[in-house]
C-alpha cells in the first residue's frame, strides 16, 4: 500500500466520527429549521423561512443578543484581568501560594448543579445568606433581588460565572508567565521602569497568545452558556436572563417546537463562525504588527 493510501486509513476513524457526530447533526439542524415539527412525530411540514421570520419578530431573540454581548464582554474581560492579577501575585512566591491556587481553582471543577444549589441559597432575597448578612450590618439598601429583579439577575449570573472561571484564567496566565524569561523583567527594572509600566509594556504584550486563547474560549463559553442560567434563573425572571441555549432548550422540550429551536441553533452557529473569523483576523493583524 502506498504512503498516501495508508494516511487515509489513519484519518478514517476521526473522519467517520466527525461525519456522524458533527457534520450530520449540523446538516439535520439546518434542514429542520425549514420545517414545522414537534421533534418526535413522523409528520413534518415544510414552511420555508417562516421560522426565521418568527425568530426575528420575537422580542426574546433581541434579549438573547443583548445578554450575549453584555455577558460576553463583562465575563471575558473581568476574568482575564482578575486571572492575570492573581497569576502575577501567586507567581511572586507568596506564603501558602499553593493553597491559594487550589482554592481559587476549585470552582472550575465544581459541577454546575452544586454551584447552582449553593448560589440559589446564598442569593435568595428573603433568607439568603448574602441579604441576611447585608441586613445584619445595616446595609439593607444593598439587599437586592439578585435572582428576582429583572435588572439585576443578568449581572448576578455574570458574577457567578466570573467566580466559577477566574481560576481557569489564572492557571492559563500562570502557564503563560512561566514562558517569559526573567531577564526581560530584570532588564526593564534596570532601565528604571516601575512595576506598573512593566505590567503594561512588558507583561501584557508578552502574553498575547494567552489573551487570544482565553478570549476564544471565553466566546465559545458564552455562546454555550446554559447550566448556570438554567439552574439559577431558568431564563427568567421574565426572560431577562435568556441565552441561546436556554431558549433553544425551552423551544425544543417545553414548547415542542423543534423547527424554531433549530432555527435558533443555526443563528447561533452563524454567530459563532462570525466571532471566530473576527477574532482570527484581529489576532493575525496583531501578530503582523
Amino acid at each position: 500500500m502506498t504512503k498516501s493510501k495508508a494516511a487515509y486509513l489513519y484519518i478514517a476513524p476521526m473522519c467517520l466520527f466527525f461525519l456522524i457526530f458533527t457534520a450530520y447533526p449540523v446538516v439535520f439542524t439546518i434542514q429542520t429549521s425549514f420545517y414545522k415539527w414537534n421533534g418526535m412525530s413522523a409528520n413534518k411540514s415544510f414552511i420555508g423561512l417562516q421560522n426565521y421570520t418568527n425568530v426575528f419578530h420575537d422580542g426574546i431573540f433581541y434579549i438573547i443578543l443583548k445578554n450575549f454581548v453584555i455577558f460576553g464582554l463583562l465575563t471575558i474581560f473581568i476574568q482575564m484581568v482578575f486571572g492575570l492579577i492573581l497569576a502575577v501575585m501567586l507567581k511572586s512566591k507568596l506564603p501558602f501560594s499553593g493553597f491559594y491556587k487550589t482554592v481559587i481553582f476549585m470552582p472550575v471543577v465544581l459541577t454546575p448543579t452544586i454551584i447552582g444549589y449553593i448560589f440559589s441559597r446564598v442569593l435568595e432575597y428573603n433568607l439568603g445568606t448574602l441579604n441576611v448578612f447585608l441586613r445584619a450590618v445595616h446595609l439593607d439598601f444593598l439587599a437586592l433581588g439578585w435572582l428576582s429583579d429583572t435588572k439585576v439577575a443578568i449581572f448576578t449570573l455574570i458574577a457567578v460565572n466570573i467566580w466559577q472561571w477566574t481560576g481557569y484564567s489564572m492557571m492559563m496566565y500562570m502557564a503563560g508567565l512561566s514562558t517569559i524569561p526573567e531577564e526581560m523583567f530584570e532588564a526593564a527594572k534596570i532601565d528604571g521602569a516601575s512595576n506598573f509600566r512593566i505590567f503594561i509594556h512588558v507583561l501584557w504584550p508578552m502574553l498575547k497568545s494567552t489573551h487570544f486563547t482565553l478570549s476564544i474560549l471565553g466566546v465559545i463559553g458564552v455562546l454555550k452558556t446554559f447550566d448556570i442560567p438554567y439552574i439559577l434563573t431558568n431564563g427568567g425572571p421574565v426572560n431577562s436572563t435568556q441565552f441561546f441555549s436556554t431558549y433553544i432548550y425551552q423551544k425544543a422540550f417545553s414548547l415542542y417546537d423543534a423547527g424554531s429551536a433549530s432555527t435558533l441553533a443555526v443563528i447561533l452557529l452563524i454567530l459563532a463562525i462570525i466571532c471566530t473569523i473576527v477574532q482570527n483576523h484581529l489576532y493575525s493583524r496583531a501578530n503582523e504588527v
Partner: protein
Amino acid sequence: MLRKGFKVCICVMLAIAIMASIVGCGASAGSTTTTSAVSSSDTTTATATAAPAAPVDITWQTWGYEHASMDPAIADAMASDFPNVNVKFNLVPYADHYTKLKVDLASGAGSDVFDIQDGAPATQFAEFCEPIGPLAEKAIGADWQTKFTDYALKQDAVNGAPVGLPCGIGGNGVLWVNKTLLDKYNVQPPKTLDDLKALSATFRKNGQLPFSIGAKDSWINEDVFQSIANDINSSKLYDALDGKVKWTDPDLIKALDVWQKLFTDKTAQDGALGMNMYNDTYDIFLKNMIPVIPVGLWMINNYTGNDTFKKNVADGNSYMPIRFPDVNGDGKAPGLLLGLNAIVVVNKNSTHKDEAMLFAKSLTMGKIYQKMLDILWYLPTVKDTKPQGQYDTELQSNLDLITSWLGDVAGSRQIKYPELQKAIDDQLQALAAGQSTPQKAAETIETASAAQKR
C-alpha cells in the same frame, strides 16, 4: 511490508473500537430500575389475556414514584400470578422525563409503558401511544370505560378518544396553611383575598414571611391565576383558552389585575420571582417559617411520604388545606382545578403490548393503584374506590375535607396549547415584576392566542 500491514491493522481496529463505543454510548439512562412481577389478581374481572409461556420483560418509565420503588408493600402488590412477566421501571426526574421520552420515541424506542400528563403532553405524545380501546377491552372488558370516573375519562381524551388509562386525580385551587403558625399570631385561615392580604400584613409586621409563592415556576403561577380567573368568570377563562373569547375581555383583564396586585400589594413575599416552589419555597414552609403556600391537593401525600413533614406533625405542628380565597366577593370559593396524576399509555412500538396492558391495568385500577391511593399519592379515578390506609386524626380530617371538595370542579388544570401557555407564563411573570399592565398583558396573550393552532 510487515510494518505497513501492522499499521493498517491498527487503523482497522481503531475504527472498530470507535464504532463500538458509539453503539455502547447509546444505552438509555434512568435514575433507578427495579424489577417486579405484575399482578393479575386485581380488583377487576378476569381478563382474556393469558400468561406468557416464556419470560417477558417490560419496561415502565415514569417520574416521582419513589414510593413504588422503596415501599415493600408496593413491591408486594406487584408480585405476580403471571410469573413470567417482569417489570423494570425507570424513575426519571420530572424535569427530564419528557426530554427522554421525546428522544426515545423519536428513535422508535422507549419503554413499553410510560406515563404522560393530560393537556399538552397528551396531545403531543398521542401518536406514539397504542390505541388503548382494543387493549383495554381485552384486558379489562368491553365495559372498561364505565370503571373510571367521568372526569378522569374526559381528561384522558385527545380528540375525543382516550389516549391511555387515567391514573389518579390531582390538582390545585387550594392553599395549605400552617395552622400552628397562624394560631401563634392569632390569625384565622383566610376566606377572601382581603383576608389573605391582612394575614400577610400581620406576618410581615412580625418580621415573618407572608403568603409565599415560588413564582419562578410557571406552573404555580398558572395555578394561582386560573383560580383567580375561575372565581371571576370561569367559563370565560376556559373559552379564552380555547380561543372562543378574547383575552382582552374585561373579566380576564380583572383577573390579571388581581394577580398583579398579589405582588404590588405585598400579599406575596418579596423576591417571589427568584424562588421556585420545589424546593425553595416548600423547604422554608417545612421549616415552619411560611404560614400559607398555594400548593395543591398532592400535598396530602406528605403525611405518609415526607419525613420532615411527618416529624413536624409529630412535634405538634398542624397543617390543613383551605379553599382558594373568594375573589369576587360572592362568599364562594373558586372551583378546583383538577388534572390527572398521569395517563398510563402503552407504547405503540412495544413488542409486548398485552403484557404491558396487564401492568397498566394494575397500575390504574388494580393492586398498585390501591396501594398508591392508600399512601395518598393521588385521589381516586376508579369509581367506588377510596384510600384505605390507617390515618391519624389530622390526616383523616384533611382527607375528608379534600374529598368533600372534589365535586366542585372549575375545570382542567392543564393548558393544552404550548405557545399560548408560554405567553401566559411570560405575562404573569411580567405582571409580577411590574413590567406590564393588565391591559398590555391581555393584549399580548390575545396575540398569541389568535396565532395558536388549535
